[in-house]
């Protein structure tokens, strides 16, 4: 699609869903192109919303140099799935309920979405979501990582995430004593 419209872009965005394209093309760091619904992109990503509003979207593929194609594919996939999913009822039940934690539990499809990701892909996606200002996707991916840690001992967590223990035995003992109030189970 060759639309050459250098300066009419601000105008273009104003005519919301009319005539013009309702998708945006994103380009990964390794040069692959992905199409995503403009509406979903603007709704789910503050950064893309800003680019769309500011007219800095390139029809030939907006460069996202920080995001690899696998992560970008997941981002786009998430946006599309999100656009298709029926938003669950009662976004916020009551403004003063204890359950109004800012975070809403992942929905079934969101769970499945992150569950199928490989370890590396999950972390790439966290960073992509962070970079693009995708609050919900960031929450869902961070939540997934927290679940991989939940209820596990430090040793088990180190194993899951390949964290290198760079403490000496003495240091570990020192910390345990210092924070005995947090290690009441030991």
């Amino acid at each position, binding site marked *: 699609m060759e639309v050459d419209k250098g300066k009419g872009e601000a105008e273009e965005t104003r005519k919301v869903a009319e005539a013009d394209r309702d998708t945006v093309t994103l380009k990964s760091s390794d040069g692959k192109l992905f199409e995503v619904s403009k509406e979903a992109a603007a709704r789910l990503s503050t950064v893309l919303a800003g680019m769309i509003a500011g007219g800095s979207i390139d029809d030939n593929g907006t460069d996202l140099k*920080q995001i690899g194609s696998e992560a970008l594919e997941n981002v786009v996939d998430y946006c599309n799935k999100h656009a298709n999913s029926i938003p669950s009822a009662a976004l916020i039940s009551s403004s003063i309920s204890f359950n109004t934690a800012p975070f809403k539990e992942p929905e079934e499809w969101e769970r499945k979405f992150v569950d199928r990701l490989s370890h590396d892909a999950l972390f790439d996606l966290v960073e992509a979501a962070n970079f693009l200002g995708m609050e919900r996707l960031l929450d869902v991916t961070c939540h997934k990582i*927290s679940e991989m840690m939940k209820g596990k001992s430090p040793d088990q967590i180190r194993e899951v995430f390949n964290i290198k223990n760079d403490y000496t035995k003495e240091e570990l003992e020192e910390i345990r004593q210092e924070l005995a109030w947090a290690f009441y189970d030991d």
Partner: protein
Amino acid sequence: MKGVAKMQPETTKKPADGLTSPADWLSALPDALLHAILSFLPAPQVVRTCLLSQRWRHLWRSSPYIKINEQDFGISLRPQMTHASLDEKWARFEDFAANLLLFHDNTSSLDEFLVCAQIQSYDLAFKLPPMASSNGIVLAKMDSLVEAMIEIAENETLSQNAQRGLLGSLYLTWILYCQKFISAPDYEWEIERKNITLQRGRGTLHCRQLKLIEVLYEHDHDHQLIELLWWFGRSVPDAIINLTKF
């Protein structure tokens, strides 16, 4: 902090034996993302992540989220739980909460603070205020706190003074949600509503920096509530008062 590129400490340098040691992507994330991840874990586990590696040692201290829930300490009101074991768990809960607040880095800003204690047991009721207020010192220094939530299960054993103590300890808080605070009904100028009890004229609320007060109510007999809020609004001039009728 936004969009920080992956730091790649060591992970790219492969050991000489040719074995590629898998990368530690988690520790490589910026603090803000690690805090977001930790925010989903129970507070005791958040603190215990300090044992993982040097990277994690002080991370919990700067977390902008503090959420301490009695359930994470096994406190529940299941009938088979003996008083002795409940007491013991409560002591841990109290000790943990006080220490967490004490050792939390008070220079980093706090976005969310929550202590959840559904005290219903008669014996335990009196113990909450000292913990939650920590003698009014620990919470008071959190002057960056923007939002606090305290929920107290309906409990007639929690005295007026104790409730006052809880509120008073949060005097630097900007937003305060109070749930299920109750009071003796025969008190002069005292207006009881489902979720908050405000008292008139006795300096009950010391939250001078409150920016938002939310009041849920069922009825407003003789406009007493409106009158009270008018008084209240004058003593807390910066606060926005939201009234919600059921």
